[in-house]
């Protein structure tokens, strides 16, 4: 026992380190052809005509397929993927290939299939598309203004959805408040920029009438369902496999036009087809996130206790619904989450723009909501001349009130219940580790030397482990090996190691005796996949329950074989033996063979055949992880450069399955948040033309900008699942922009600078200082 919680070696590492892992671009099939996409160069245009002749004339080109070529093979030519919501005003589902109109730069118009990618790209450049440019909408606020051009020619307006989230009587709370403060905030989008871009390899087997798609997707079962729906095929005729994935971070959970079009090309040409997204395509065609404009107000009493929060959000949805209204829902839900807010009202407008669709990027709306809340609390502290941490302490939900039923509703309508945690203690610990109390002395000493230090704090809380379930099958084969299959999908976050640990805990504690298969629709029929920091909670719980069942059965049979009581047996490695009598043993292989059956002979002890169990533990309520980030910065007031001097994250994700992996998730998420706060800017011009489409223009954090991140864990087990775990994948990113902006504003307090946006760049910081001087 004792595999859970131990720093065991990862199952994933050996092949990744040796260079013999199998990512989607590593898959080579006999007779495989290569695809490139012709994409819209316009934010908005009508397509008058497409001329393929020159492209088809190029040697090595097998096909140029446009929408009309695909229609005969599709039952449904749109990707109907939007999550349910009553708030939609319009259904705008993406087509497989453009239907007479393009609505964002990068939208796929045609697929070119050739002997190799070089030829395919040459030919793509020879496809002549006659565009009639139309007015494009770039800014989501302008999109909702009266008389704005429409993002889609046939659409009545650019409002995709509208909803209100809230409870209590916010206006009454504001009417009686001692103080009311208002903020106008902007948070900017970015990309996921997994170092591996997207990709798909499709193969059609005419003998078995079966389509196989290897895709770098986070959600293979969803992809299979989409392919079945769009191509009119049944579940036995489509298999989707997720090979090794070089990072997901959200956009790979989406089903894309390129997935279905690559599959169609393989079916039409009766040859395997590979399409690998390059980085330039990733910049224009993979989904992005975070543009939101907020107008928000907070009402507090004389002691800075919150009475109410109200406001409005305009969320940039991009040109199509590629996931739903989940992001602004998350943002609005996040605002009051870990604080006691008696009344709340947030109006959300989801606006269409002529930009690539917006779907979750690590954090999924939570960073924006956290940013808004923490900016409001900083404002309260400044106006009432209170310590920023003290204002938070007064308003955090105390541990004594856990579990705490909020008045919020999750997107499925269930009440949001905070299951466990000690938020004030978490903050207190982070402040202590970061030297919050001593900071004024450091700041004053630096100021004498002409240097500007600042410190910032931000709390977050996030629902993780979104249900209703994830599947897991645990099976001991006649080899004695323990096999785990799950609908979970691995994308670099150690999912296989996590599942192996949880199963090994019950079945012999030998990680080397466990194999894990994820991301294969042929291995397990049900599955949801990777999103929402969900897999340790959902797949982990199912694997745990399945392993317990297999354990129980193995011990029962072993008791029969060894003529011993089950209670006296233990599983050690691949053997079951009588406790204290290592010689009295039977192997797992022998047990598995016993229940595999022999024709004509009865099974021992009347047990059912086989040594396996499948579980889909249903957990609708979300396990809420929380944490506090404290960051100390130095701002160079001449250049606007921000140096991160100290960075502390204290985090609570319940029971920890693997401490090193959890640290890695937090630190990696923090790095993403630092990018969002200080470096990453996805620029578009006024015609919605992307202007930052290389890593020279769009800056990712490198090793020299990253400070050492000090991570500490609290463990408040979740009562919602049998393991007590909570998710961690997205948590690191959530409080970072809020904490850094708070710290930079603090450093610049002598100038009276107020910051209402993320990211902030050096030139903007210098401009803010100059503006404040005036």
């Amino acid at each position, binding site marked *: 026992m004792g595999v859970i919680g131990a720093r065991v*070696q990862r199952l994933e590492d050996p092949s990744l*380190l040796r*260079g*013999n892992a199998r990512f989607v671009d590593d898959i080579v099939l006999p007779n495989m052809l290569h695809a490139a996409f012709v994409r819209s160069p316009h934010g908005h245009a009508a397509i008058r005509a497409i001329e393929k002749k020159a492209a088809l004339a190029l040697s090595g080109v097998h096909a140029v397929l446009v929408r009309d070529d695909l229609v005969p093979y599709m039952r449904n030519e749109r990707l109907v993927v939007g999550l349910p919501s009553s708030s939609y005003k319009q259904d705008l589902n993406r087509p497989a290939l453009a239907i007479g109109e393009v609505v964002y730069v990068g939208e796929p118009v045609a697929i070119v299939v050739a002997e190799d990618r070089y030829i395919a790209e040459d030919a793509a450049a020879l496809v002549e598309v006659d565009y009639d440019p139309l007015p494009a909408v770039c800014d989501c606020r302008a999109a909702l203004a009266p008389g704005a051009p429409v993002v889609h020619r046939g659409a009545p307006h650019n409002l995709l959805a509208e909803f209100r989230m809230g409870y209590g009587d916010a206006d009454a709370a504001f009417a009686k408040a001692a103080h009311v403060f208002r903020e106008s905030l902007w948070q900017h989008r970015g990309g996921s920029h997994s*170092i591996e871009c997207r990709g798909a390899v499709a193969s059609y087997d005419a003998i078995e009438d079966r389509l196989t798609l290897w895709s770098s997707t986070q959600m293979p079962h969803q992809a299979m369902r989409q392919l079945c729906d769009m191509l009119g095929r049944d579940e036995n005729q489509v298999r989707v496999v997720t090979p090794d994935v070089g990072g997901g971070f959200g956009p790979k959970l989406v089903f894309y036009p390129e997935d279905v079009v690559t599959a169609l090309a393989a079916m039409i040409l009766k040859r395997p087809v590979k399409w690998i997204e390059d*980085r330039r395509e990733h910049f224009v065609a993979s989904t992005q996130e975070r543009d939101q404009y907020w107008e928000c107000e907070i009402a507090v009493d004389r002691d800075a206790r919150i009475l109410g929060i109200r406001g409005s959000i305009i969320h940039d949805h991009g040109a199509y619904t590629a996931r739903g209204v989940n992001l602004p829902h998350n943002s609005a839900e996040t605002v009051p989450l870990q604080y006691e807010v008696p009344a709340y009202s947030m109006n959300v407008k989801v606006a269409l723009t002529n930009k690539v669709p917006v779907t979750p990027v690590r954090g999924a709306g939570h960073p924006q909501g956290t940013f808004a809340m923490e900016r409001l609390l900083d404002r309260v502290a400044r106006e009432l001349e209170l310590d920023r941490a003290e204002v938070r302490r007064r308003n955090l939900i105390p541990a004594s009130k856990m579990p705490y039923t909020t008045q919020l509703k999750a997107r499925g309508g269930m009440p949001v219940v905070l299951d466990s945690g000690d938020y004030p203690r978490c903050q207190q610990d982070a402040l202590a580790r970061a030297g919050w109390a001593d900071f004024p002395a450091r700041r004053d000493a630096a100021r004498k030397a002409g240097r500007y230090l600042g410190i910032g704090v931000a709390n977050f809380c996030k629902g993780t482990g979104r249900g209703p379930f994830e599947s897991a099958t645990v099976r001991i084969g006649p080899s004695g090996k323990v096999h785990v299959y799950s609908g979970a999908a691995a994308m670099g976050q150690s999912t296989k190691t996590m599942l192996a640990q949880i199963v090994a805990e019950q079945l012999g504690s030998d990680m080397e005796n466990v194999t894990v298969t994820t991301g294969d629709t042929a291995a397990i029929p049900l599955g949801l996949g990777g999103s929402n920091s969900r897999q340790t909670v959902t797949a982990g719980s199912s694997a745990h329950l399945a392993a317990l069942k297999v354990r129980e059965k193995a011990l029962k049979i072993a008791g029969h074989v060894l003529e011993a009581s089950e209670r006296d047996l233990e599983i050690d490695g691949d053997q079951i033996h009588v406790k204290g009598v290592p010689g009295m043993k039977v192997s797992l292989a022998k047990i598995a063979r016993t229940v595999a059956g022999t024709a004509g002979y009865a099974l021992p002890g009347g047990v059912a055949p086989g040594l396996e169990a499948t579980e889909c533990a249903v957990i609708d309520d979300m396990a809420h992880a929380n944490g506090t980030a404290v960051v100390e910065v130095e701002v160079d007031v001449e250049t606007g450069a921000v140096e991160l001097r100290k960075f502390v994250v204290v985090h609570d994700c319940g029971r920890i399955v693997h401490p090193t992996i959890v640290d890695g998730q937090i630190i990696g998420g923090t*790095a993403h948040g630092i990018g969002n706060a200080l470096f990453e800017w996805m620029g578009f011009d006024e015609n919605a033309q992307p202007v930052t489409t290389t890593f020279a223009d769009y800056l990712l954090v490198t090793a*020299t900008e990253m400070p050492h991140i000090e991570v500490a864990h609290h463990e408040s087990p979740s009562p919602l699942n049998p393991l007590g775990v909570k998710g961690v994948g997205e948590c690191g990113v959530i409080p970072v922009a809020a904490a850094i902006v708070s710290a930079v504003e603090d450093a610049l307090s002598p100038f009276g600078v107020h910051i209402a946006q993320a990211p902030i760049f050096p030139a903007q910081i210098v401009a803010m200082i100059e503006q404040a001087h005036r």
Partner: protein
Amino acid sequence: MAESRNIAVTVNGKRHEQRVEVRLTLADFLRQQLGLTGTHLGCEHGVCGACTVLLDGQSARSCLMLAVQANEHEIATVEGLAPSPDTLHPLQEAFRDNHGLQCGFCTPGILMTLVEFLRDHPDPTEDEVRVAISGNLCRCTGYQGIVAAALDAAKRMRKGG
């Protein structure tokens, strides 16, 4: 049809004589023609460093080189790093033991960058390691595990491990 030439390249100690199109990148030659898919492509414009290999012992971006430019040169890729199927290179061991990788896609380029760096700087400071890998992008780790792994590897390699 694109022009082709014969080239001879030694990769991980093995000589290959092949005909290649002149426009074929070194990365695509390694991956597609030699089947050495451990070298990865993350940006194809020379920034991310995932495709880093050693050319005559010096790190090079195989996405920015043509295969013909490697004619009569020695290439080292990640596949040649481990001394045997059962043993890892000390740098690989250090990455495993310090959680220096998550998805592992950037890892081959970082390993090859560090092979050169640690050969030339056997006892580096943390800051020197950070500068050495500042031309390699990683989206998963925040670099902390990578830096720890590099320092640990330096220690192991100094001990002759």
